[in-house]
């Protein structure tokens, strides 16, 4: 390859990486946590004081429809699952269930910890209306950064693959770490750039094809591959709903082994009532999604989608989604995703630090302003996100029980914005040390807050085999130790390292000033 081409792609990789890196850090950090969102939902919800009697789903539907006529238009029914033992009916963002006495009650969600971190994952904390699309564009840039990174790295692929030169040359070490993680987890990153762009921008990107290539007929071609069913129209003729057990029996007969997780009802009480059922079925495929459409008043099964009968396009799309959400392979895959996701976050963090190292003036005590600003921005955004996520966990256990969702959201933004402000107010090395210590402290406090808030001793949880509580505690302890180690390392570099760096805390001495004048 010509060296000028190589230089072009180094520049492309650098600038695209810098633009996308901040959002990608947040997406990867929050995403790695979100891998466990079902288990975290159990962590954030206090166990019920009294055991609720197992509720009959059809009874809940009838009770809500009798008192809430508006629910007839459409509602969701969520069946109990491993980490959410309650049966819940939802419409218009209102939630209903049976209380301990078996009476219908409307309730507010106790906490939104896992939901908030999930939203952070796909919006990076930007407003909901456009955050998702912004991250979609970021994913395309991420794709360009990957492609150019591979082009730059390809000529020395085998020579550098297992090289990690720890030593005096800090830039070399960071570069090796960045390359090793980037190349070894390249398939993971390719999959994420691809599947995320499709999840975030897929619908928008149908438009150019619909209008420029397919003359408006695209949805007729691919609609059945993407959507389960077109929404039914109400007929205006009243008809009773077929009881849910009968619908379930129909589905189980046609798809033995189907596990329905949620149902979506449209026009309940109308002759055209439509019921969509979503769940899983194990057919030894990556995508285990199963879905069915039934007529709610006749009970007739109208469509059944499962891996066995997926079309090529559906299989492709659903498999990319399953790869994205880690919905296969159980715990082993989830932990692998968690580690690779955290390593990905580190990749973006190290990329920014490399940019600063590359611009370091090795002979001058006065460093370029751009390097200092980049250091402060990287510290503020990345460590602000880390501290904010830990703060949300703390607020979940220590905040006011009746307004947790609001406190969790505001708590995150408060911590995040304060960290960004702090990073710009202090010299980089000081800010790094202090913010990393803050991250370590907040993260270390998570198991303690859980203990104080729920009264469950973590050791007792271990004895009782509560994997979720023990898992959160162990991950928190590990990460707190890592942040503390990083904090000490950055302080050491500041006090004793090379003074020709934005990370140095050594004041320019008179002798050094004279030396520079002499030179």
């Amino acid at each position: 390859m010509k060296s000028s081409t190589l230089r072009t792609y180094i520049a492309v990789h650098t600038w695209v990486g810098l633009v996308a890196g901040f959002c990608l850090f947040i997406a990867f950090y929050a995403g790695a946590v979100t891998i466990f969102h079902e288990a975290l939902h159990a962590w954030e919800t206090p166990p019920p004081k009294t055991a609720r009697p197992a509720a009959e789903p059809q009874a809940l539907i009838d009770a809500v429809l009798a008192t809430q006529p508006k629910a007839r238009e459409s509602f969701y029914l969520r069946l109990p699952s491993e980490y959410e033992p309650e049966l819940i009916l939802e419409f218009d963002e209102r939630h209903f269930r049976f209380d301990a006495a078996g009476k219908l009650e409307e309730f507010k969600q106790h906490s939104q910890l896992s939901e908030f971190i999930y939203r952070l994952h796909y919006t990076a904390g930007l407003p909901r209306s456009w955050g998702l699309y912004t991250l979609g564009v970021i994913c395309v840039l991420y794709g360009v950064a990957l492609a150019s990174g591979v082009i730059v790295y390809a000529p020395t692929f085998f020579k550098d693959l297992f090289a990690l030169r720890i030593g005096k040359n800090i830039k070399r070490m960071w570069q090796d770490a960045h390359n090793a993680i980037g190349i070894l987890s390249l398939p993971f990153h390719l999959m994420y750039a691809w599947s995320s762009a499709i999840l975030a921008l897929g619908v928008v990107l149908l438009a150019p094809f619909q209008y420029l290539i397919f003359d408006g007929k695209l949805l007729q071609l691919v609609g059945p591959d993407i959507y389960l069913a077109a929404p039914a129209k109400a007929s205006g003729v009243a008809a009773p709903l077929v009881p849910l057990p009968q619908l379930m029996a129909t589905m189980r007969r046609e798809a033995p082994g189907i596990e329905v997780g949620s149902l979506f009802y449209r026009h309940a009480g109308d002759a055209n009532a439509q019921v969509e059922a979503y769940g899983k079925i194990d057919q030894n495929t990556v995508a285990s999604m199963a879905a069915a459409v039934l007529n709610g008043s006749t009970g007739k099964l109208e469509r059944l989608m499962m891996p066995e009968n997926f079309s090529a396009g559906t299989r492709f799309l659903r498999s990319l989604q399953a790869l994205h959400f880690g919905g296969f392979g159980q715990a082993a895959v989830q932990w692998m995703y968690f580690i690779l996701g955290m390593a990905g976050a580190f990749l973006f963090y190290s990329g920014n630090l490399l940019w600063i190292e590359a611009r370091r003036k090795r002979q001058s005590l006065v460093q370029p302003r751009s390097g200092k600003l980049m250091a402060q921005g990287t510290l503020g955004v990345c460590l602000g996100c880390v501290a904010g996520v830990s703060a949300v966990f703390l607020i979940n256990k220590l905040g006011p029980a009746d307004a947790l969702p609001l406190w969790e959201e505001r708590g995150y933004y408060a911590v995040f914005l304060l960290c960004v402000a702090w990073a710009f107010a202090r010299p980089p090395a000081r800010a790094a040390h202090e913010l990393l210590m803050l991250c370590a402290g907040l993260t270390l406090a998570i198991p303690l807050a859980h203990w104080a808030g729920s009264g469950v001793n973590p050791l007792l949880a271990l004895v009782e085999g509560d994997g979720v509580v023990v898992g959160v505690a162990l991950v928190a302890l590990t990460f707190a130790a890592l942040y503390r180690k990083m904090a000490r390392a950055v302080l050491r570099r500041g006090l004793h390292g090379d003074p020709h760096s934005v990370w140095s805390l050594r004041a320019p001495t008179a002798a050094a000033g004279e030396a520079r004048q002499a030179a």
Partner: protein
Amino acid sequence: MWGKSTAAVFLGMPLAALVVGFIALLSTDQKTTTLPLLLMFFLAWVGAMTCAFLFKTGVRAWLWMGGAIIVGFTLLHFLKAYGLLRITV
């Protein structure tokens, strides 16, 4: 560099859509092959943007890519008008 970058940003998407669209319309079984090809669009898009930086100058990138887009869409229009390429719904 700015010329090549703007060519990548503005011309990468229509060029990739053109290539993927052509292949999609050439298929004899469009009901089966269209969605898989659309899913490949992301790779084509990233590829087109990456290739924009292979040109010697920004002007060349704009002329070649822009020219390919104009010729391609014109050709597509006439092929569809004369029924040589059909959308089989």
